[in-house]
């Protein structure tokens, strides 16, 4: 892996003078943020450049299944913020909203292989699937055992036959935590993979946007959203959603997000769930707690018990204002691994 990266100060990279972001040149955003992360969390992570990989400081952990993930940047803290004890062993950050390249996943896989194989956590997007697939082929060629799980929890994608399939969104965060805990506890690759499939199967998500986000190099919002409208069923890449509707109150929005999730699994009376109310990056925490309150009331009305919760900006879309709900049906095993200690830049408890 490459040496520490330093900004080409005298490059022809243009200084930011046009887009309302705290950046220098758009092409340097990811590297500069990585440099910041590396310096901020030397006890937790190491950052390697070209190919860019964020690796747990003590990787590889011998005798432990390695767990890696990756995807385009712009979703912070996912995935880099989840690298550390009890969660990911490595993360591969692509360019903004662009799947990373196989070289990154190959480097990560080699860096975290502790002899028990490596699990690739892949969100279901055409680019991510293909790039991870190529990396897995290359890793296999080098003799590393790789298993994969593809998350596809987004109920906004109604018809999987006529699409690239459901997108992987909020469940990915919960899965990385739970599966990371199992790997930390010593589970073997087959068990870790099976647990990952179980989590993916037990969770569903749905998101909405009040505003479009602005990709640094594009310089303007991905779509125009009039002052009195919102997008329902958005993903996390600034793409428009399934439908555009008139702006509504929090209570109505919560109902729009919760209903398709609850129907899809389906969740039923007596279920115990982890609720994840996620902000898209530009939504203040006060609104997320308010939305959590709405979701809580909906679930109470259905006899579903919230026994764990996560509220905050964890899987984001740059500066998009909006939120998503994720519900994960819990059992004793998932609860135990959710509660297990975790020590990463973005999620930390018990340590």
């Amino acid at each position, binding site marked *: 892996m490459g040496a520490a990266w330093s900004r080409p100060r005298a490059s022809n990279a243009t200084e930011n003078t046009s887009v309302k972001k705290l950046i220098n040149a758009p092409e340097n955003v990811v590297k500069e943020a990585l440099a910041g992360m590396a310096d901020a969390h030397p006890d937790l992570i190491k950052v390697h450049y070209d190919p860019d990989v964020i690796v747990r400081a003590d990787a590889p952990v011998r005798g432990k299944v390695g767990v890696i993930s990756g995807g385009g940047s712009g979703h912070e803290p996912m995935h880099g913020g989840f690298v550390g004890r009890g969660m990911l062993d490595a993360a591969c950050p692509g*360019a903004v909203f662009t799947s990373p390249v196989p070289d990154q996943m190959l480097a990560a896989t080699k860096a975290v292989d502790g002899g028990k194989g490596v699990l690739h956590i892949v969100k279901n997007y055409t680019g991510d699937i293909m*790039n991870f697939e190529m990396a897995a082929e290359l890793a296999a060629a080098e003799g590393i055992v790789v298993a994969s799980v593809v998350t596809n929890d987004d109920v906004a994608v109604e018809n999987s036959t006529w699409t690239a399939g459901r997108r992987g969104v909020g469940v990915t965060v919960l899965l990385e935590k739970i599966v990371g805990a199992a790997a930390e506890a010593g589970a073997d690759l087959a068990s870790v993979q099976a647990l990952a499939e179980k989590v993916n199967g037990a969770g569903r998500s749905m998101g909405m946007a009040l505003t479009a986000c602005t990709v640094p190099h594009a310089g303007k919002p991905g*779509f125009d959203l009039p002052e009195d409208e919102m997008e329902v069923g958005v993903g996390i890449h600034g793409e428009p959603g399934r439908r555009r509707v008139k702006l509504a109150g929090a209570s109505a929005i919560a109902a729009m997000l919760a209903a398709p999730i609850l129907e899809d699994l389906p969740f039923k009376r007596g279920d115990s769930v982890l609720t994840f109310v996620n902000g898209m990056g530009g939504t203040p925490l006060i609104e997320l707690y308010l939305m959590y309150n709405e979701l809580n009331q909906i679930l109470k009305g259905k006899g579903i018990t919230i026994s764990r919760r996560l509220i905050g900006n964890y899987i984001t879309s740059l500066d998009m204002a909006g939120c998503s709900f994720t519900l994960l049906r819990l059992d004793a095993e998932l609860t135990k691994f959710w509660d297990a200690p975790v020590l990463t830049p973005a999620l930390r408890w018990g340590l």
Partner: protein
Amino acid sequence: MQITAEHVIKFIETVAARIKDQRDYLTQLDSAIGDADHGVNLDRGFSTVVGKLTSVADKDVGSILKTVGSTLVSTVGGASGPLYGTAFLRAGMATADRFELGPDDVVVALEAALEGIQSRGKSTRGEKTMIDAIGPGVDALKAALGTGDDFVTALRTSLAACEAGMKATIPMLATKGRASYLGERSIGHQDPGATSAHLMARALLDVVEGLQP
């Protein structure tokens, strides 16, 4: 008319320059039905490719194309990285050890590229992707050469078919890639990947035309 390794390099350079030129246009198309990165992705990849061309300038066509392919795989990312990367890798395998290609060799290389994209992307024509431009373009080239057309004329016919294929993506409903999430709302927009494919087809014609006496 024979295509030499030097011509292949000229073709790649032309593609790289035009992608840089059309970067914002491609990205803008991707912003309508995707995630606003197609032009930036390809420009990042082809800029890197250009930097590697001198090191393979004296190699066979297959090695050149394989270098292009593996560089694209390593630098583009997204959906188009593995797809165009695989395309150039397969075309490179089809032209291994060759220092000159005749028109029929070009068809063989392009068919291998198309087949590579389809197997990597698990896609077929009519799904509103780059294949909808490449497929008709390759078919037309082969057919035109079959009727005895000279290479430049056949490439012109091919480019027209490629362009028609690109435009045909506008009314299509996307069922592959990011645009598929939009459902009905994907209709009415031209596919970014089909557009970049058409740009490459035009570059091929222009380079070959430039070789004419």
